[in-house]
């Protein structure tokens, strides 16, 4: 949104395509609807309204419910809305696909009643629906945020089961001085944890060996180990979270080079500080270019838009550099806390490479055992696993299993995960019907 506003203010014609029904992205999801102005979502959420107002006044053409399923150099995008696909060409395209939660596979994670913490937050934001009798499990800032939002809404989680170990905290410690540059964010985090403590939510630390089963009434029985003891909790909803990873289907399908980010245990598109990639006319910004959070995403969007204004001759390089000062400072400050967060909430090895009986590919029901069997028969990369087992071939196109397949291929050893090339993202990056593809109507616009 911030990129679109900056570009439009600079005199470009801008088309904003977003798959969601309303503008706002993940963080400001549904902020425009009165339904969602629940005070328990906090001040940060409400500040999205300002951005939305600016967008409404900017002259940007906003297409909601518009799914991009193909990006080509040229550049052009092919997008689908209400079952009809269109092609739009432009001199510049900015890809800002955001992030998804890292899949948290364990035996039983496919049961109805096991969902992601983000899913519960989306239900709170868009439908005002609060989970009954929920357990939150995993780690990461969003887990604490959702817990605090549930407390404020009057339905505190039954327990918080944290995978964080003292060793992760020790590894994070050296990054603390730098993280102090983002003192505001650190304080916010401390306040969240304070709130969870004050509410008396039961916390289990250093948890491992997650497993879930369900009974006839649909209740979830969640077992895990904490401090050497086997624990059992019964709940209606088990909400898991283990940080977020970039959504790279669009950038990979567009042919942009990707590089391994060891700290975030994920691949990201290679780009310069303006988000310019090795593909002419294609920029990337926001969490889809590297997880940095909402403030960083906003700043990166501004920088990309300024660079696009320069590249299209609307401003000089000097003007771009001058106008970029605030956004660059914000980016520097907000990124300062990432090494600390990445180390403190690192995904545990058993989530990256889960036990044999765990379903890894939810679409095609492929287990970790089958993948290990495939490896013993010689499969060494995503492609062989995909062609022999169909893992990653279902409708989600690997969004739920790619990261785990990579984890299993490297036996949970994060230092080896970067050596496994990311799988190719095939077009269409979101499923559409043949009929829609065949009926493709072409129209072209001069957009940024």
């Amino acid at each position, binding site marked *: 949104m911030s990129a679109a506003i900056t570009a439009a203010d600079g005199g470009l014609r801008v088309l904003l395509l977003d798959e969601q029904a309303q503008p706002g992205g993940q963080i400001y999801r549904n902020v425009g609807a009165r339904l969602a102005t629940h005070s328990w979502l906090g001040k940060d959420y409400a500040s999205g309204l300002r951005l939305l107002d600016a967008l409404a006044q900017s002259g940007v053409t906003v297409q909601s419910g518009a799914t991009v399923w193909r990006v080509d150099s040229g550049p052009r995008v092919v997008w689908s809305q209400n079952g009809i696909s269109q092609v739009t060409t432009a001199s510049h395209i900015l890809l800002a696909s955001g992030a998804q939660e890292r899949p948290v596979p364990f035996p039983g994670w496919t049961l109805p009643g096991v969902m992601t913490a983000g899913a519960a937050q989306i239900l709170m934001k868009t*439908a005002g629906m609060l989970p009954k009798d929920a357990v939150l499990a995993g780690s990461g800032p969003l887990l604490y945020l959702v817990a605090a939002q549930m407390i404020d809404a009057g339905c505190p989680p039954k327990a918080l089961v944290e995978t964080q170990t003292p060793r992760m905290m020790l590894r994070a410690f050296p990054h603390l001085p730098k993280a102090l540059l983002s003192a505001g964010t650190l304080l916010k985090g401390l306040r969240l944890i304070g709130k969870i403590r004050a509410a008396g939510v039961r916390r289990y630390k250093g948890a491992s060996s997650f497993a879930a089963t369900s009974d006839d009434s*649909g209740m979830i029985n969640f077992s895990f180990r904490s401090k050497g003891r086997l624990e059992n909790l019964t709940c209606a909803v088990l909400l898991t979270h283990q940080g977020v990873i970039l959504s790279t289907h669009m950038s990979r399908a567009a042919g942009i080079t990707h590089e391994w980010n060891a700290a975030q245990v994920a691949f990201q598109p290679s780009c310069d500080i303006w988000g310019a990639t090795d593909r002419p006319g294609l920029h990337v910004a926001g969490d889809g270019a590297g997880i940095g959070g909402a403030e960083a995403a906003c700043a990166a969007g501004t920088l990309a838009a300024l660079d696009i204004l320069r590249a299209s001759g609307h401003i000089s390089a000097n003007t771009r550099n001058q106008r970029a000062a605030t956004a660059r400072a914000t980016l520097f400050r907000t990124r300062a806390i990432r090494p600390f967060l990445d180390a403190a909430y690192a995904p545990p090895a058993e989530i990256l490479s889960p036990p044999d009986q765990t379903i890894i590919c939810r*679409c095609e*029901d492929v287990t970790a055992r089958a993948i290990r069997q495939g490896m013993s028969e010689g499969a060494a990369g995503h492609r062989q696993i995909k062609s022999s087992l169909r893992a990653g071939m279902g*409708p989600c196109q690997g969004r739920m299993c790619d990261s785990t397949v990579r984890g299993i291929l490297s036996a949970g050893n994060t230092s080896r995960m970067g050596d496994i090339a990311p799988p190719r993202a095939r077009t269409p990056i979101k*499923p559409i019907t043949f009929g829609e593809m065949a009926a493709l109507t072409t129209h072209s616009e001069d957009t940024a």
Partner: protein
Amino acid sequence: MKIVSRFQPPPKTGATAEFEYEGASITAPQGISLAAALLAHSGAYTRQTAGGDARAAFCMMGVCFECLVEVDGLPNTQACMTEVRQGMVVRRQIGLRRLNGCNDS
């Protein structure tokens, strides 16, 4: 055994939409997603995999495809990305409907 919803019902304000799901009539606030309305209705599964596994909406943001249902006869519809509409007829998706042109590559 009926599986009760795992969520508190959405607040009753504003306009509603009525739709059919597996023969039952469901009323939901307008503007919420079909997946949210189904979760408010029941805690049971809404899709079955080819292997017979029961599944329900998981991510609510369009990435997991566990919320696939049949809407007005159209299979492979992501309930979390579809708003409830007055009069829509929704069914569970049983087994995997092959998606044309994208996953048999």
